[in-house]
């Protein structure tokens, strides 16, 4: 039953790529910003979670919970002070800025964390598995997949059930008319990028627990995220 095993493992791994993609897709859907630094932001978040683990001794899941608000604030500020200044009709400036940010992040992380590869350790959970009869699956891939489903489900609820989601969709449709409704598109964008960073934190947690990471692996994660968005045709949130 090797083929079934491959299929199941592949499916579960898809959960990780869906997590990579969800943040990218959220930001693109709302403000048409292609964030070329997305992969590096995932690596940055993994380092932040690792730092929290090492500083507090808490388990990685709790550490990610602590890191998430800080990374939300970081995403909010990144949008407010940097990306909002370059968003406009011309799509080139945001591409250049996020490309520059990608390089800056890689080098900054190299400076601070060195080129050594790191891992977020979760002890026995790393190798735990359940026997499902025909196949045996690891607990970690299962958790990753379940988290991806939960993230996408939650995003959907936010988009279609809350006032914030309504503001996301309206701003995505037409920022000028949205501002006539009392919405400040720039702060909607800032909240969206903050939210994307929370998803990035979840993606980073599973990335860091699954395999080694170092400051240089961001761009490859970006490619996976792109593939999930484009080949997988994952719906763009907020856009029709």
């Amino acid at each position, binding site marked *: 039953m090797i083929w079934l095993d491959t299929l199941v493992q592949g499916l579960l791994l898809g959960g990780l790529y869906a997590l990579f993609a969800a943040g990218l897709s959220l930001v693109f859907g709302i403000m048409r910003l292609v964030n070329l630094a997305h992969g590096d932001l995932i690596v940055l978040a993994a380092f932040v979670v690792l730092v929290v683990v090492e500083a507090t001794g808490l388990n990685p899941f709790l550490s990610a919970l602590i890191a998430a608000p800080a990374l939300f604030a970081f995403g909010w500020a990144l949008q407010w002070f940097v990306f909002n200044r370059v968003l406009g009709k011309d799509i080139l400036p945001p591409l250049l800025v996020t490309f520059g940010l990608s390089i800056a992040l890689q080098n900054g992380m190299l400076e601070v964390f060195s080129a050594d590869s790191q891992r977020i350790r979760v002890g026995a959970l790393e190798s735990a598995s359940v026997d499902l009869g025909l196949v045996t699956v690891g607990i970690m891939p299962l958790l990753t997949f379940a988290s991806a489903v939960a993230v996408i489900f939650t995003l959907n609820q936010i988009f279609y059930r809350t*006032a914030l989601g309504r503001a996301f969709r309206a701003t995505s449709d037409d920022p000028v008319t949205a501002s006539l*409704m009392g919405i400040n598109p720039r702060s909607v964008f800032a909240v969206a990028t903050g939210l994307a960073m929370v998803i990035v934190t979840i993606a980073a947690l599973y990335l860091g627990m699954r395999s080694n990471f170092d400051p240089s692996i961001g761009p490859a994660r970006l490619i996976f995220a792109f593939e999930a968005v484009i080949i997988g045709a994952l719906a763009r949130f907020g856009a029709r």
Partner: protein
Amino acid sequence: MLETHSLTASYGQFKALFGIDITVAPGECVAIIGANGAGKTTLLRSISGVLRNAPGMVVHKGTPIGTLPADAVVQRGIAMVPEGRKLFPSLSVEENLLIGGQVRRGDARWTLETVYALFPILKERRLSPATALSGGQQQMVAIGRALMSNPELLLCDEISLGLAPVVIRDIYAALPRIRETGAAVVIVEQDITRALAVADRVYCLMEGRVTLTGPTASTTRDAVHAAYFGDAA
């Protein structure tokens, strides 16, 4: 309540308004007429904050608001029904109304219920995507969406655009009920007869300047004709 002082506006190199002075009193209905390209939409976009101006060019209740962004202007009680309706296609009819009510001012004169009472057809279609409605129904959504913020001043840009006469009549039938709430209304209208019939005062724009102003009761069609097309006509 609202005044503009030598209001100018341009799109890049192109000047669209050359010193417009208008006033709107509380509860008043003012019509703005003028040929295509006269600058009517530009004037409303300047008041509503979509276009920024010098601070003193737009004054609301004694406060200069010319530089305020649109989201701050609507919070002051000035709502706009934009030209071409501009409904949000990703939102249902009801969500379009709700988003208009995201800024809620004072007592809730306008709620989903009162807007549905004003335009009953919208209640039936409340779950449809906004842009799946007929043109007239879409215009009702656009008006209801602006009302949801309980404005003291409602700016309406060509609410009869592209609609059949019978539908236009239905839409204009809502106007007295809107004015009952005490709101002032500015109406941009191509149909001069209708504009003169519903408004208290009229301004006629031509090529970015006011060419005629006065109470509608004492404004003759000949005067409008001259102001509309210039003296040569």
